[in-house]
């Protein structure tokens, strides 16, 4: 083997590190090893999957797709999807660096989803629930007309059938490409939850990393029970906006799940491997 200088050795090592990171970010199936974002530990892919995509070394919760969440939460084959065929429309002819219409087409192709939420019904240990599961991979889980409409329809189904609602949130906030209409989804989804509440039907909100802006300021924070996944960023205004506004460094752990629990905003910080068991207890409480 040809000898290399120390400098070259370091730069080669750096390159390898970078490529590792890229592979992990892309999460290409078939990769045997992934690296933890938080502790850098190399994890055997299969182990990670079996461990609910929680890093076995440091407990970091990797992001999950809506489909993975359905698999982890609901009884096998119990899920029935609602309103699968609603799609977003570029009704403002909105163009930033690219037209919104093009962004949508790309997001649909890339994520395999029609928008940033899947809604439907299923059972957890045979207890029926109506459910909404957001997916961050579709335009950062942003809430536009489709997300608002699907969530609202799902809640209205729950009002009719008198079944509990569970929503998994993950979202960068309102979808700016839909202008004011994205803001109005906050009103629409919240009033549906108001109706659910008047009908005495429980709502469990599960807040995952990250949940910010218009989504946290509407249905994500409105659960009868709010559950947060460990370490999730949960906020109204993002840390960067706050730093720019107040020109101060933010305290450690600020706006993370544990911090929100300490400040009384969430009931439980629940690790993903204990989530289903927790949900079962809660649903039992409400139904018994």
């Amino acid at each position, binding site marked *: 083997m040809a000898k290399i200088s120390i400098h070259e050795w370091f730069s080669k090592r750096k390159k390898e590190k970078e490529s590792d990171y890229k592979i992990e970010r892309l999460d290409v199936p078939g990769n045997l090893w992934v690296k933890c974002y938080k502790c850098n530990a190399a994890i055997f892919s299969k182990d990670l999957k079996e461990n609910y995509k929680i890093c076995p070394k440091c407990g970091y919760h990797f992001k999950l797709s809506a489909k993975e969440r359905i698999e982890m939460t609901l009884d096998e084959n119990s899920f029935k999807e609602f309103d699968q065929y609603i799609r*977003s429309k570029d009704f403002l002819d909105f163009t930033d660096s690219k037209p919104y219409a093009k962004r949508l087409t790309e997001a649909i192709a890339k994520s395999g989803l029609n928008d940033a939420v899947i809604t439907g019904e299923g059972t957890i240990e045979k207890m029926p629930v109506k459910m909404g599961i957001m997916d961050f991979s579709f335009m950062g889980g942003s809430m536009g007309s489709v997300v608002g409409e699907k969530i609202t329809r799902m809640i209205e189904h729950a009002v009719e059938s008198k079944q509990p609602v569970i929503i998994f949130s993950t979202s960068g906030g309102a979808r700016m490409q839909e202008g004011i209409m994205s803001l109005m989804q906050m*009103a629409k989804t919240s009033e549906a939850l108001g109706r659910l509440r008047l009908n005495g039907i429980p709502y469990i909100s599960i807040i995952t990393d990250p949940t910010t802006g218009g989504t946290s*300021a509407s249905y994500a924070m409105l659960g009868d029970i709010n559950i947060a996944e460990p370490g999730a960023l949960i906020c109204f205004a993002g840390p960067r906006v706050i730093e720019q506004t107040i020109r101060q460094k933010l305290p450690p752990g600020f706006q993370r799940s544990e911090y929100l629990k300490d400040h009384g905003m969430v009931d439980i910080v629940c690790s993903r491997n204990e989530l289903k068991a927790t949900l079962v207890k809660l649903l039992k409480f409400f139904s018994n």
Partner: protein
Amino acid sequence: MTQKEEQKTKNLFNFEKPLMELYKKIEELRKVSESSQMDLSEEIKMLEKRIETLRRDIFSKISIMQVVQVARHISRPTTLDYIGLICSDFVELHGDRNFGDDKAMVGGIAQFEGRSVVVVGQQKGKSTKENIERNFGMAHPEGYRKALRLMRIAERFNKPIISFIDTPGAYPGIGAEERGQAEAVAKNLREMANLTVPFISIITGEGGSGGALGIGMGNKVLMLEYSIYSVISPEGCASILFRDSSRAQQAAEAMKISAKDLLALGVIDEIIKEPVGGAHNDPEKAANFIKHAIIKNLDGLLKLSPRELIADRYNKYRKMGIFAEVAELADAHDSKS
């Protein structure tokens, strides 16, 4: 210059510069008429008329970023100004009964056209000092909770609610996050939906995102002609999506934030006209326009029962959203399965 005129030239926008010359001429004529005892009042009147025509002309071609300037003008009448001008017997009520009293959000009880009402709204200042005290109209969670507390008083004693919206947004700060800004806004949305009394919201200046909506779920939403209402500020949108905050004009146009655009989208119910040159040029007149708009809209709402009011509000926001139900996709899927 008379004090009033001095105030007027001080309030001129840069896009109103052509008016400056005319104001100067009026001033000169006044001086001449004073020193020479010539009567130039006819000439002054003519110039004043020209100012009005020119101003009308300028405002008929106003761009959206110019509207943003008018909406944010430091002399634009505030919530307390309007309450003072259209209501009597106002008693301001303070505090959220939990944490404190937020000066960026004001509210209380008052008489409006012989009827008891509850009024709430964000309060901006008219000077830097006042603005610091009022936190530039950006409320903390306790502000939203105070507003909800007052709305509940209205509900308990069966009085209509009028909310005045004028805020850059809910405040983004450490305390605001710790005390649950997101929860405070979200809870207001849910609770406003179920209010059993008539509720009118008026956007009088800046309708800044969730912070505006947080007191803005009226049965009727009215909007002053030169106000804006948007999911994010034009500057914020430009810096996030266009990666360049100087492209605010483009972002403002793209997001459709003017009263006219929002009426077309069905997000607001009515545009309230403003005096020529904007509300700050004639607050009394602006307040009068607002008063008449409230009377008209309140009349209809007072005929509804509590149940009908909730249904009316539910249906209003239920309809918001534009999307496509992709029937072809569904068909293709069905034929496959």
